[in-house]
Every structure is written in C-alpha cells, then in structure tokens.
C-alpha cells in the first residue's frame, strides 16, 4: 500500500546540505501496526512527513495506493491528505474554537461531505468520547484531547493513520489508554497505523519496529506485542 524506493531528503541549512533521509526503501502493507524509533535527528519526522504527503522527497519515488505521489501538485496532495491519510500529533493540534464534534467533522468539511455530524459522532464513539462531543479542547483532559485527534484522523476512513509521538505529551497511564485505543482501531477496524516514538514500552504495543539512524533504516524487525495477544502477525508483513 505504501511503497518508498530510494527516497532521500536533503535540506539546505545556510550553505550546508543536511541529508535527513538517505535512500530509504520501505513498504507498509494494509493493516499493519508499526513504530518508527530512533534518536533525534535520525529522520523519523521527515519520513513521517513524506509518507504523510506534507513533504516531497528530493529523490526516489513514493507510491501511496499505487498513486505516484512525486508527480502530484499541492492541491492534489491536499486531497490525498484529506482522503487517505490521518494525522495524530504529539501536541494534539486541535483548533481551540471548535467543539470536539466539529473538530472531528473538519476533514469532512474540506471534502464537502454530507451528514458530517453523524459520521463525526460515530468516530467519536469509536474513541469513547460520545459524552464529550460538545466540549471545547480547553474543557478536555490531555488524553481526551488526543482521543479527539484520533477520531479526527480516522473519520475520513484513511488508508493509514500517522502519529508523531502521540503519547509524548501524556503521562504513562494515559499513554497506555491511547495505545489501547490505537491497538483497538488496528485490530477491530483493520486501520493501518504507523507512529514515531521514543518510548520502548509504547513501541512494544506494535507488531513491527523500524529503527532509523542518520537517515537510514538500521533495523526493521517484527515484534510480538508485549501484552498477551493471541492474534498472529499478518503473514504479508515481512520487512523488505
């Protein structure tokens, strides 16, 4: 579903060239649940930005659901983000003015969809926040805000939810709650989830762990979820 071939990203900082990513090859199949780990500056965020169609690689090709993303213009990328990608951020990134249900409905607004509220309410129910639909972000706890963000990411039924340190701003108890929500979405609805994290105990929830260093993949290994989980890892998920 997601295929990166020889993807590199260079930045110019002043006169210096920074290689954020060096020739990455990566495939992510539908239904995977994976973590990307690595020290700061290893290129994790750049990788997520490219996979999330927020950024374009300087070299290499990226295909999402068979679409060659390299060739798309800004507005086509926006459509891709809207329809096939969901984002969850470390700092939640909710809009301060909107109630939970309006936050969740926002991607549908940009799509021009009908009965958004109904769809948004269903998404909120999936993360267990039906009773907070009309609260503003300031009236919600950190964990609840992140759940609203997750609902917003999944409301458009994306191919993949990308999360950049989704538990980075939460205490460990709440972090585990959020991971449970993500795991549930992956297992029960088959939504593909990829996230960046520093924390090994968070990464332990996933079935695949990719480690980056200096813009290169240094390891890509299957993981047995640390909690007792009878399901076997899907067969197609094998590191390239």
């Amino acid at each position, binding site marked *: 579903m997601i295929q990166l071939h020889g993807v590199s990203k260079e930045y110019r900082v002043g006169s210096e060239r920074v290689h954020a990513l060096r020739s990455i090859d990566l495939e992510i199949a539908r239904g995977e649940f994976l973590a990307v780990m690595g020290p700061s500056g290893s290129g994790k965020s750049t990788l997520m930005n490219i996979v999330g169609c*927020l950024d374009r690689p300087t070299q290499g090709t990226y295909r999402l659901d068979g679409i060659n993303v390299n060739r798309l213009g800004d507005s086509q990328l*926006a459509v891709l983000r*809207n329809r096939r990608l969901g984002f969850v*951020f470390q700092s939640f*990134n909710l809009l*301060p*003015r909107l109630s939970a249900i309006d936050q969740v409905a926002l991607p549908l*607004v*940009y799509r021009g969809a009908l009965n958004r509220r109904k769809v948004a309410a269903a998404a909120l129910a999936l993360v267990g926040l039906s009773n907070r639909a009309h609260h503003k972000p300031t009236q919600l706890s950190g964990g609840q805000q992140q759940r609203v963000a997750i609902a917003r990411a999944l409301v458009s039924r994306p191919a993949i939810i990308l999360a950049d340190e989704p538990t980075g701003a939460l205490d460990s108890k709440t972090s585990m709650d959020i991971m449970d929500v993500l795991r549930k979405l992956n297992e029960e609805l088959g939504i593909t989830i990829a996230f960046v994290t520093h924390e090994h105990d968070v990464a332990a929830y996933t079935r695949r762990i990719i480690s980056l260093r200096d813009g290169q993949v240094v390891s890509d290994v299957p993981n047995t979820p640390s909690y007792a989980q009878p399901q076997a890892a899907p067969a197609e998920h094998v590191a390239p």
Partner: protein
Amino acid sequence: MTLADVLITALSALRSNLLRTLLTMLGIVIGIAAVITLTAASEGAQKGVGERIRGLGSNLMFVRPGAVEESGVQLPGSGPGLFLEDARAILDAGFPYVEGVAAQAAVGGPNPGILPVQVIHLGQNKSTSLLGAEPSYEFVRDFYVERGRFISEDDLTKKALVTVLGGDVVDELFGTEDPIGQTVRIAVGPGSFAVGFNFTVVGVMERKGASAGTDQDDVVIVPLPSFQARVPFIRDPRGFTNVNQINIKLTDRSKAGQAKEEIAALLRQRHNEAEDDFRIQTQTDVLSTATEVERSLQVLVVSIALISLLVGGIGIMNIMLVSVTERTREIGIRKAIGAKRIDILWQFLIESLVVTTLGGVLGVVSGVGATRVAEQFQIGGDNPYAVTPLWVLVGLAVAAATGLVAGVYPAWRASRLDPIEALRHE
C-alpha cells in the same frame, strides 16, 4: 468546502476575537457613515440650491453692472454703469421674447459693505436689505404681495414714502400685529452716519425662502425713485438713475441665447464703452455656477471620506496580517487534514470581507441615522439631506472592495504557508 462552511468558519473566528473585530470594523463604519452623511449633505444642498434658483422664476435673465476692479480683485456687480434708462430701452426695443423688465437697486443684506440697512418700529429693529423696485417687479420676479398692495406707478411718480415688507421683517417687528398702515423707519448707512426716513407700510410679500445666500423674505421694498432719492452715495453725476440689476422675464427659456446676444448688443450701443461694463446672466448660468461650486465641494467631501476608508482598510490589512501570524498553527492543522491553498485563501478573504461588509452595512445605517439627527437639529442650516441610493450602493461597494483589497495579501500569505513549518510554529 462550501461557501456556507467558509462563512461559518469566518464568523466563528471573528466572534472568538469580538473586541478586535469590532474595533477593526469601526474604521470602516466611520468611513462609510462619513461617505453617506457628507454626500447626503452635499446632494441635499445641491438640490436645494437648484430648486431655489429655479424658484426665482423659470425664464429669468439678469443684467448686472460690470465689475469694478479693486487691487486686482474683480467685484462682480459693483460697477456704476447700469441705469434705469437701460431697462426702459430694453423694454422699448420691443424684443418679441421679452415679457417684462424690472430694474432694481438694493443695499444692505447679509454682507452690506458700507451701507447696512436697519428697519425700526417702536424700538424694535432689524438689519435687513433695502430694495428699490418698480411695479413690474412682482410679475417679473414672480414674487407677489400677500396682503395689502405692491408699489404702484403712482408711488413712482410721487417718490412716495411707502414700503412693502418681507415676511421675516413682519415677523420680527410686528409679530402677529397687522403692519399695514403702520410706520417704519428705514435707516441706511453705518452707525452714526445712518440716514433714516419714515415709510408707511402698504403691503406684505408672500414667503419665498432663502436663495443661494440671500433670504428673499428678509427684505424691505420701496419705490425705486424713493430709493434713489433717499439713499445717499448712489447717484450718477449725469442725472441717470443707477440700478444694481435689471431683471428680464423671457417668454420662453429657449430664447435665452438669442436674448442674451441681442440685449448685449443694445447695451453696448448705449454705453459705447471699449469693454463691456455689464454682465448678462441667464438662470442657467447662475444654476450651473452654483452646481459647479457644489460639485467641487462634493469631490472634496467624498475624497475626505474615502481617505478615512483607506485608513480603515489599512487597519484591516494590518489586523489580518497579525491574525494570519497568530493562527499559523491553525493553518498548518487545516492543511494537514486536507485544506487546499484555495480553502485557506477563501477563509481569510471571507473573514476580511465579512468585517468590511458588515462594517459597510453598519456604516450606512449610522450614516442615515446621522443625517436624520442633523436634520432634526438643523445642522448645516435648513438645507435638506438627501441620502441617495447611488451613494449607499457606492458605500457598500467600496466597503466590500476595501475588504477584498485589504484581505487579499494576508490571505495569500496564509495560503502559501508550508504545512510543516506552520505546524511547528508556536
């Protein structure tokens, strides 16, 4: 994203910073209110002046003496070279289009120069203008006696000391008392140099209203020869009778051009001067001069109002730029979840348009309100205020255009933001 969505987004953003929105809007409200009020005042004045000039009588033509040049400044109507005999000659020439001729001489009035006029009755006095007139004045100027009688041929030959009063003079000196048969004293000249004579009131003029600077009801009319005999300083050494103005009533306005030429030729022949020492104005000339003055006043007034709008527009642009910077992160979030550049552009543009359009509507409302209040308290005299639909539309259009112009650049900046940078923005 539908227009309704964009509007809802804009309104909620504006509501979340209500005070700032209102203050920003105020600039536009004041600008548009100024446009509406000032144009209403000037349109009203223009209309009023036009009506009054037309009210002088529809087919009038005026002959005035040429200008006396005083230290390089031409003072129109101040020369000595126009006589009662000229008026007689115009009438006697038998021009088929001349319906009536009335010579007049006047002193006093609101800007009396060296000859102010006081009319006095039983200790009450009023400064006014003194008009020496012929019996034909009534017909030619279309200005009739309401009570009593006007000046007669008999009064002229006798140089009778009789007078017909304007409505304002009657009000002030007599109140509700009947002035006919009473005596008033008319004093001409400055302070202790004033020369006064008693006149018997024989009539009261109908009300005519103010006209281009002079109030036609604030007048005391006496027979022209009595005026000549009693008012000092206005004497021609050759024994001719000086007049200020000859009013000519034409049968038909379309003859004005021909009349102007032929009467000018006649006067030139009589006066035999190298340069014309008289001026002939048709009513159209007077009207177009007045209109011209009003026009340039209106241009001035509207440009002042537009400058205030410009200032309001700059305020809006400034606030929109601040708003874009403040909401960089919001823009990043919106882009991440699928907003296109055009969506962001619209969001900020509509915000700016909503502020100015709402400001424009409020400005029109308060402008109309201001004209009502001004009319109530007669600010700017008794001129009417005319709020014209044209200027209301112009005001609204300018307000919207201001929003568009002020919003485009900030909105464009917002739309060009890189989502990654924007999301990183604190």
